[in-house]
């Protein structure tokens, strides 16, 4: 029996989301974002607000639209409708380079290091257009202690976990206000994943706000201050991890009608067939 007032929906019923608005101006705000890949609608009316100091985690199954959301926020993908605001300023039309200057840096899925460049050169490229701030190459070497000794090595020769650290470093040296992490755990052993996520507190202490996409739900819950579940491009869950039961997460993740009945919420309306 699901807890009363479960906020769970199938993709054609918008989340009966009655989560109270958090106070203040969000650092990063996404408003009713809709995005397509060709004809396929990857995101439908997705909204979220990230506040300074958040570790905001987006979870969901394959094809849920998580990476599309992050790429749209980073500027690599053009939304169909909706807007993205950084500290109140509309950045929706800006190219990725401008967004970096504004303070949004992304660690893309699959690391995407510059393979023929050395570790240090990767970091140097990352700092080429850096904003002023506490992060620099030296500080990245302090954060990842192994890196200094290997800084002359070509990036393509590193292991997956090492590449992930360099990719994070490359984004950090730009001194972003919001750091986007896309599927950090992909292709990495669990121990390595934990170690990398273990660096998050250090980032937060230095004033970076984190918005991450994570396939491993448990891992996301371990670090998140805010959780947002997508299913086939729509929001099925949004809230703080403490207030969310595993059952609600499960139904939001799989979206199976009958796993939980949309009991006490306001009546949901059916999406007209298109």
């Amino acid at each position: 029996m699901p807890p009363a007032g479960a906020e769970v929906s199938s993709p054609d019923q918008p989340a009966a989301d009655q989560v109270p608005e958090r106070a203040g101006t969000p650092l990063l705000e996404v408003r009713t974002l809709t995005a397509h890949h060709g004809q396929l609608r990857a995101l439908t009316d997705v909204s979220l607000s990230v506040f300074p100091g958040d570790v905001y985690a987006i979870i969901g199954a394959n094809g849920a639209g998580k990476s599309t959301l992050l790429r749209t926020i980073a500027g690599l993908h053009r939304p169909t409708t909706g807007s993205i605001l950084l500290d109140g300023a509309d950045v929706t039309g800006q190219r990725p380079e401008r967004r970096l200057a504004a303070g949004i840096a992304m660690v893309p899925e699959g690391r995407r290091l510059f393979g023929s460049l050395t570790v240090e050169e990767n970091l140097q490229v990352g700092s080429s257009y850096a904003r002023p701030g506490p992060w620099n190459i030296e500080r990245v070497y302090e954060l990842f202690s192994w890196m200094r000794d290997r800084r002359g090595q070509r990036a393509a020769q590193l292991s997956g976990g090492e590449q992930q650290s360099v990719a994070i470093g490359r984004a950090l040296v730009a001194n972003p206000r919001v750091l986007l992490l896309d599927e950090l755990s992909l292709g990495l052993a669990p121990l390595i994943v934990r170690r990398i996520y273990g660096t998050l507190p250090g980032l937060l202490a230095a004033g970076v706000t984190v918005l991450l996409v994570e396939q491993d739900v448990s891992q996301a819950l371990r670090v998140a201050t805010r959780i947002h579940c997508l299913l086939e491009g729509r929001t099925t869950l949004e809230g703080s991890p403490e207030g969310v039961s595993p059952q609600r997460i499960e139904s939001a993740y799989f979206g199976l009608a009958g796993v939980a009945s949309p009991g006490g919420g306001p009546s949901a309306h059916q999406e007209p067939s298109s």
Partner: protein
Amino acid sequence: MPDATGTALLELNRVSKSFGRVVVADELSLTVAAGDVLGIVGPNGAGKTSLFGLISGDLAPASGEIRFDGHPVTRLDAAARCRRGIGRTYQVPRPFGDMTVFENVLVAAQQGARLRRQASYQRAAAVLDRTGLAREANTASERLGLLQRKRLEVARALATGPRLILLDEVAGGLTDPEVAQLVSIVRGIRDEGIAVVWIEHVMRALTAAVDRMICLAAGSFVADGRPAEVLADPAVREVFLGSEVTTSLAGPGPDAAGGG
């Protein structure tokens, strides 16, 4: 319910495949009988599409044997296997753009099923009826909407006259009514005696269509059974949701507070 008396149509015997250090198939053994409708689920990178590649002939296994209708097909390439009766759709529908819907299906009938002239036209027309594309027969395929493109993907696979059809994530991006239409097409395919193996992450499509579900994770089968059982299986939950959520789900009661 899987047909217990059905003869094995497809057999995989300890099939393995890796790409460098990534194992996409770890001694997989699988039997699919004629008339089965099997759903395959699993997280990103689990090896689902690679599994299809191994069955359809797009990928050669590193070890193991694959038999179709009792004959070994391990060494045969995709075209040869298609002619034997293994049909497949691809994740990203890529029809022959400037050709009409009918022409696309015709090519499949002529090349895949080796039908000629009259027989091929009849097959193409029949398949278009079954997949609900009859009205779009003369539309250029690049002008189709999403659901129609997916129907076309299925139609092309059907036109090759398969005994087993592999559906690769066809339900993505479809609304509820569209998913229902897709499910009824799949049911129609099953009713004709064609075995169906369907990779999908849109769970509600699978639960409505399949009798049997398998969860694939890191190249191994983690669960195999009825959809409701598989989705409630802790091993499957762990694969998707991770260990802590799974433990909490199995915990004392549904009202236990969640969270890590």
